């Protein structure tokens, strides 16, 4: 049995940091972490190891698939299956780029008065709506949610 070398440990650590950095970027509502750099993320790994899992409130993988399908199929009823707009506006990543996470989440959660956009808090949990907002802002890969 050979012990992992120092460089291997470093690369393991950075691989973990990469994953976490991606996770943090994917959760823009967590403002304090929003500006973390990769190195900062590496350091924060140790802090997070002491805290409960940060992603515990994310939907389960099965539920995520349902939510993605919902975005394409049901949001798509008004916004188009390609999310390029219809009765509702386009909700592609580029269309949402200047909107900001808070507004996208609030639109899903509370709806928009005076428009056909309903409040989805009747059908989603808050964590699900946040996850959905964040996925929309990143953009859905072409085949996802079919």
């Amino acid at each position, binding site marked *: 049995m050979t012990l992992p070398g120092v460089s291997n440990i470093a690369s393991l650590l950075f691989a973990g940091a990469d994953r976490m950095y991606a996770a943090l970027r994917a959760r823009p509502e967590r403002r304090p972490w929003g500006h973390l750099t990769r190195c900062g993320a590496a350091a924060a790994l140790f802090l997070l190891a002491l805290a409960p899992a940060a992603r515990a409130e994310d939907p389960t993988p099965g539920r995520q698939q349902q939510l993605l399908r919902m975005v*394409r199929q049901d949001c798509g009823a008004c916004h188009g*299956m390609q999310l390029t707009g219809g009765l509702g506006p386009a909700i592609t990543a580029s269309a949402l780029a200047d909107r900001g996470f808070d507004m996208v989440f609030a639109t899903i959660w509370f709806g928009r008065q005076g428009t056909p956009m309903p409040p989805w808090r009747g*059908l989603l949990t808050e964590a699900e709506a946040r996850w959905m907002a964040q996925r929309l802002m990143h953009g859905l890969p072409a085949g996802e949610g079919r």
Partner: protein
Amino acid sequence: MTLPLTRRDWLARGSTLALGGGAAASLLLGGCAAPVAAPEPVGTGDLGLIVERASGSLLVVNTSQPRVLGRIEGLGDLSHASIVFSRDGLRGYVFGRDGALTRVNLLTHRIEARVMQAGNSIGGAISQDGRLVAAQNYQPGGIKVFDARTLGLLADIPAVDAHGKRSRVVGLADLPGQRFIYALFDADAICIADLSDPKSPRVTRFDGIGRQPYDALVTPNGRHFIAGLFGEDGLAVIDLWAEQPQVRRALGGYGRGKEPLPVYKMPHLRGWAIAGPHAWLPAIGRHEVLVADTEHWAEVGRVAVAGQPVFVMARPDGRQVWVNFALPDYHRLQVIDTRSRRVIHNLEPGRALLHMEFTPRGEAVWVSARDDNRVLVIDTASARTVATLDAQAPSGIFFTSRAARMGL
């Protein structure tokens, strides 16, 4: 495809040979003396198209012997796609979300012509004589009229509000005499475009019809145009037979001041609401179907239903009205008996039931169950599912019998 009868049963019943796939046909024809048997001519009156929206394809189906005859692929983004038919029932004009207008042939299963005519389209209509096809567009807001034979553009008619800003168009339908009628979601208006001279269309406009018309329909006799309003609880109605047609409000204040419930899918009105002397209409933000008399457009009743109605469709004879719902209740169907105005069947035949289409005389209704990847054929007398057909995320179902009906 799972059917109660096997393929052999269908063949034994004299099913169509010309279309049914070569193998079985050539077996039966094998004993003929002639080396090449001419295919038996077939009609199109019992054919239809089913939209598979995620894969951009259409299924060609036969409704007399519920089965899939073939698939036409390559139609682009078909979310909210709708179809009108040439009057011989041979060709379907498909309006895609991505702005494509495609003409398909129901016997050859081929795309014959295709134009990208807008950035975002929502449906279309065909003229009384079948020569003009009109598309209604969200982007750029307006209608475009095409030669049905060539798909060449004949007229481009923008839809604008009082400030000249483009409006999305909804509820487009044909009227007698080469006319089309439509509503402007963003401009609270209704327009009639007269294309008796396609080179110089004449547009008549009605303003201030009510807030946010979301869809509309022409009654089967062509007399009334009814636009549902999203921005207020009521409908706008025009009597097109009047000397001076005017817009009037019908069923105003049907919500009785109550806070509307969330509408997770917009209802659709097109075409089927009339059963006998009454119109059956979905309420917005209320779990009710509203019943109005078509002479005075006064409310004569309302029926409590399982959720936000999306399609409220009268069986061709008008004896039953079938209702499907917005999510989260879109696994349910309810059947209303129009004489007693009671719900007589509560069905849960599948998941994500998006659309219904009656066979020409209504002995069966076909229902798309998107999340089950199949289409259900339900006997309307017994409310039992009598056949199912495989389809990829099916949505709209359109039968050629629409070719003979105004407003469809």
